[in-house]
């Protein structure tokens, strides 16, 4: 009997192929897509209440997007060959498009939108700052110092169009990540047409929760007042998207249980044993039902500002844990059972290995470091616009 294996696994299946780093990949891209969609609420759908989070959400999306390919690079057996995906993409492969979707999203959507939105600030900084910072801002102007009202109107119009393009792009980015898993017909745990949709809504949920936590956290650090109108609106959207996400996941579960195909017995066993803690306890109870209950309470009961603030932050943190557990259960859970449906293996996270806990932690801290740099360079704060509420 092989260590950690119960029943029969095909001999090449005992070792898991996709590790903790591949759990981070959909988690991080999900945060990007969710943060961007929250930003687009203000820009395209004119939800004025969420305005204080607009720029912060864009910078959060950028910080996480810059880190998104790193777990994949670390995971590849030959990272030096990854550029081949751009040069000779295999058109039938779902994965081959990642580079193009990523570049489209980074270059065409996020960078352009952020630049257009910040252009006047950048020009102002380039004209007032001294030393190295002056040169940095001058470079960021890309040679355009024109901030006349007419040029700002053009910026605004182009920015609007970019955001309109950005929404389906954000859907594409994360729906596509779901498709990478959902299209593997060999794996019944992954193979469902619902996977891209579930990934998309869970991405929106996690992105909104992340921006909420970052907004409250940054306000506390800067000792500025938290805009409760904004927080209530973000909390409301978090609740709505989470309800849709949870409904889709439950639909998938009910469908699998009712159909009970040849893989059901195997998957059911797994959920009750090896995935019990991460799926039932962490994902469903702690990471979904509890935050949903808390968010529902804010919609039904009149709490004070201080209590509501705590509830939103608590629910968001739980949501972030729950969505991480969901990614874990998809990626790792999908490899714990044999494709023979006759056995199960185990996964132990190493610590200081190439695909271990340490690089994973570093990759989760890195976006926050990048965000700090971005916030210093392009301050997103708009205190003067905070209204009483």
């Amino acid at each position, binding site marked *: 009997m092989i260590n950690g294996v119960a029943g*029969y696994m095909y*001999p090449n299946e005992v070792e898991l192929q996709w590790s903790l780093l591949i759990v981070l990949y959909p988690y991080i891209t999900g945060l990007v897509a969710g943060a961007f969609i929250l930003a687009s609420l203000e820009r395209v759908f004119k939800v004025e209440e969420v305005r204080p989070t607009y720029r912060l959400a864009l910078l959060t999306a950028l910080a996480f997007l810059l880190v998104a390919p790193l777990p994949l690079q670390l995971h590849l*057996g*030959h990272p030096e*060959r990854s550029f081949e995906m751009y040069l000779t993409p295999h058109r*039938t492969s779902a994965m081959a498009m990642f580079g193009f979707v990523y570049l489209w999203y980074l270059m065409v959507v996020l960078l352009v939108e952020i630049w257009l939105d910040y252009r006047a600030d950048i020009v102002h900084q380039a004209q007032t700052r001294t030393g190295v910072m002056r040169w940095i801002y001058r470079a960021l102007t890309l040679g355009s110092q024109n901030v006349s009202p007419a040029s700002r109107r053009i910026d605004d119009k182009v920015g609007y169009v970019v955001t309109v393009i950005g929404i389906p792009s954000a859907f594409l980015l994360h729906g596509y990540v779901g498709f990478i898993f959902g299209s593997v017909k060999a794996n019944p745990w992954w193979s469902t047409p619902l996977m891209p949709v579930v990934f998309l809504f869970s991405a929106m949920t996690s992105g909104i929760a992340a921006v909420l936590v970052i907004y409250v956290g940054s306000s506390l650090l800067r000792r500025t007042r938290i805009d409760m109108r904004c927080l209530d609106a973000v909390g409301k959207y978090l609740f709505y998207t989470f309800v849709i996400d949870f409904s889709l996941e439950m639909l998938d579960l009910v469908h699998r249980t009712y159909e009970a195909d040849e893989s059901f017995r195997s998957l059911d066993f797994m959920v009750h044993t090896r995935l019990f803690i991460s799926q039932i306890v962490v994902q469903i109870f702690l990471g979904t039902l509890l935050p949903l209950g808390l968010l529902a309470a804010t919609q039904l009961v009149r709490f004070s500002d201080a209590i509501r603030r705590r509830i939103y932050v608590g629910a968001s943190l739980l949501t972030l844990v729950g969505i991480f557990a969901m990614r874990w259960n998809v990626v790792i859970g999908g490899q714990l059972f044999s*494709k023979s449906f006759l056995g199960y293996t185990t996964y132990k996270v190493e610590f200081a290995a190439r695909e271990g806990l340490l690089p994973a932690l570093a990759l989760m801290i890195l976006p926050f470091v990048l965000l700090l740099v971005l916030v210093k360079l392009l301050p997103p704060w708009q205190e003067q616009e905070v209204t009483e509420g």
Partner: protein
Amino acid sequence: MEITRRQLLTRCTQLLVLTGTAAAALEKTGQAPGPDDTYHMADHWWGMMIDIEKCIGCGNCVRACSKENNVPEGYFRTWVERYQVTEDWEHPKVDSPDGAIHGFPANTDPNVKSFFVPKLCNHCADSPCVQVCPVGATFVSPDGVVLVDPDYCLGCRYCIQACPYGCRYFHPEKHIADKCTLCYHRITQGLTTACCEACPTGARRLCDLKDPNDPVHEFLRNNMVHVLKPQMATGAKVYYNNLDGSVR
């Protein structure tokens, strides 16, 4: 040490001649032989016939494959499974200790139906592993063999996830996906695969579906033939005679 211009030129010439000769010799001897000149890929469509009743679970095929292809320890391009099936045939007991590289311990339970199932890459015509490779490093050759280009594979392991049969592994030293090549270096020279050659009972036989005189045509016509997981619609080309319904 003093050296004259004449000595320097002489030594450089000697060095050039020596390295040139060595390079030419290496080119002649160090390379793997290419496909036979008389071999035309378009004339072949390779597969394998497996007769379950003939397999005795000796593990010769696994050992031969491992030796022929330098398969790293603990990984398998081919392996043999032993099924022990009771009346509850949907839940058979299966084992394959070390891929059966040393065969099997004796079956002690006389009340079960016991048989051996050799497994290898099914060299599918509509292969899911080929479909998902992001750079096309995995491909089906014109003669129907699924191969991996070791100089092109990124090591993303998507193909390993996509294979329904568990036939691929991640090579621990080369850091690429690796699998059965149907001994492509042998079959293009007119030889059979190492596993087929080592099989003492003829349970495994290489077949060429494009050869009208190949026994595979009679095999397919006259036997109860099945492929693994036909519901996956992969166009598998490893054909099993008398495959039990319990086999996964």
